[in-house]
């Protein structure tokens, strides 16, 4: 069964007097467990697509079915609940809360979801161990290296055991070595069955994915799954 089904998605922005079609007539299916790279030049609609997939934005037209359920018609509160349980975000600039420690940042989605403190503690300890952050639990983000910060962010994205991880240029702010570490980490998660969608400018990173999407002017220009040959 397809995890994601987009059909006829339109997303328009009003810039002054002119309407910009960020996405137009987009149809896309992503199966559960797939590893998808979204590429394309700036302004091609990659980020808009990612925001739509993450339920941070709503399309002007078209339907989005996540795990067989139409999520475009949900209320904002219901969408927040779906984000909380089913979707994890990894950002280019990590987006850690500076006043919280690594452990608290990882626990944040569970706190927002109202999970009991004892269970939170247990799961955070497990996550810290899994991501090699045991010794950094009480460090604030500004005391961590870039690679460590992104590992904290990935731990945070996975702590609610989502079905889908959306990564926006996850290696964009990292050097090649730590970037590779982070990519391996994400790919390991994908190996465990989590659907992974990565937006990137980096052709090398894009080439690692099982499926490549290339966008241009709000439309899919190339999809390796349906590519001839």
């Amino acid at each position, binding site marked *: 069964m397809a995890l994601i089904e987009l059909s006829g998605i339109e997303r328009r922005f009003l810039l002054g007097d002119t309407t910009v079609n960020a996405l137009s007539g987009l149809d896309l299916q992503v199966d559960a467990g797939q590893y998808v790279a979204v590429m394309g030049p700036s302004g091609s609609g990659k980020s808009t697509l990612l*925001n739509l997939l*993450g339920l*941070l*934005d709503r399309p002007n037209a078209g339907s989005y079915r996540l795990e067989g359920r139409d999520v475009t018609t949900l209320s*904002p*509160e219901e969408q*927040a*609940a779906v*984000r*909380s*349980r089913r*979707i994890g*975000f990894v*950002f280019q*600039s990590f*987006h850690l*809360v*500076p*006043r*919280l420690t690594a452990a608290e940042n990882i626990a*944040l*989605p569970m*706190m*927002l*979801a*109202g999970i*009991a*403190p004892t269970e939170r503690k247990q799961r955070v300890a497990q996550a810290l161990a899994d991501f090699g952050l045991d010794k950094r639990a009480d460090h604030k983000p500004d005391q961590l290296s870039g690679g460590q910060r992104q590992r904290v962010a990935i731990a*945070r994205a996975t702590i*609610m055991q989502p079905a889908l991880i959306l990564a926006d240029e996850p290696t964009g702010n990292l050097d090649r070595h730590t970037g590779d570490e982070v990519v391996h980490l994400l790919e390991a998660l994908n190996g465990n069955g989590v659907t992974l969608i990565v937006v990137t400018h980096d052709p090398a990173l894009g080439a690692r994915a099982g499926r490549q999407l290339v966008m241009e002017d709000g439309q899919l220009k190339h999809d390796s799954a349906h590519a001839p040959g």
Partner: protein
Amino acid sequence: MRPADTLRFARDAAAGYPVRTALSVLAMSIGVAAVVILTALGDGARRYVVGQFSSLGTNLVIVLPGRSGTGGFNPANTITSTPRDLTIDDAASLRRLPSVRRVAPLAVGTSEIAHGGKLREAMVAGSTAEFLPIRNFELAQGNALPDEDWNRGSSVAIIGAKLRQEIFGTDPAVGQLVRVGDRRLRVIGVLKPLGQGLGMNTDELVIVPVSLAQAMFNSNTLFRILVEANSREAIPAARTQSLELLKQRHRGEEDVTVITQDAVLATFDKLLGALTLGVAGIAAISLAVAGILVMNVMLVAVTQRTGEIGLLKALGASAETIRLAFLAEAAMLSGIGALLGYLLGQLGAFALRLAFPVFPAYPPSWAVIAGLSTALATGLLFGVMPARQAARLDPVLALMKH
């Protein structure tokens, strides 16, 4: 989000911006402290005046010569324009009234008192034996005025504690002769120190028999007649009976004024209560200002933390969760500010009481409760707008601000 988590999150968020937090807490605490101190002052003034009046004596009815206010046209006034004297006999006649327990006539003047080469000015009160119990005065040494015919004044005097100390020093005063005006009087008693008593400092008072005082000051009229009613309930009866009797004695002319302590007290109580309320109102304005400041601070917080709000939304926080977190933070700022202000205000009132021991500057409990709850209410009220603004932020735009 669990309530405990919301509170902890708000606390950490507030602690994350110490200057901003300290400023809004300070503003709120100054507002609450102003309410506490100003109402303590106002209520202290009320209590002070009420206390002074109560120290006059209990169940007191006071007769003054002359008519205060206009009582309509009275043909008697057209013939005799000068008010009739309020005499010692008038006072003595009041003793026969059924509702009256004690009566003390009072004649007042200033004179000089001298002994052993020391001389000073003193206030002289001419009265009778019952003056001391009516005014709740107590003797430190010696005896009260002799219980004699009111028109026959013995040459004796009771002096205040400060006078005794200034004129006799450590020597015994009772039994000594002093010169008061042109009379030589024997000191028969010394009052216990009491302090100020409504314009009459009893520690510097000389009490002599009433007829002696009238002779000294060459006057036939009394300054006041102090009448003590049998009980609190008997006060109105004592008032009307006194008025009626004196009117009769003055040939039907109502040329005296009778006031009750209660009426005076109630007037002052009301007056100063209103003053306290007014002052509290002024202080409440500073609370409102503090509330607006909390709102500004929270609005700045929303702008400052736009990226964080976007992140929280991406991590699955509902609008409700974010609204509650910001509201909790505003409530916390104003709550801590209110508590701090309460302590500050109590400290200020305490300092006032230390500086002016006679002045009972205690904040009334209604003002404390009103001040604290107004602070919390304004904090919450002015926290709603920023909280709603935070909850309404578009997550995509908010995330780009990070």
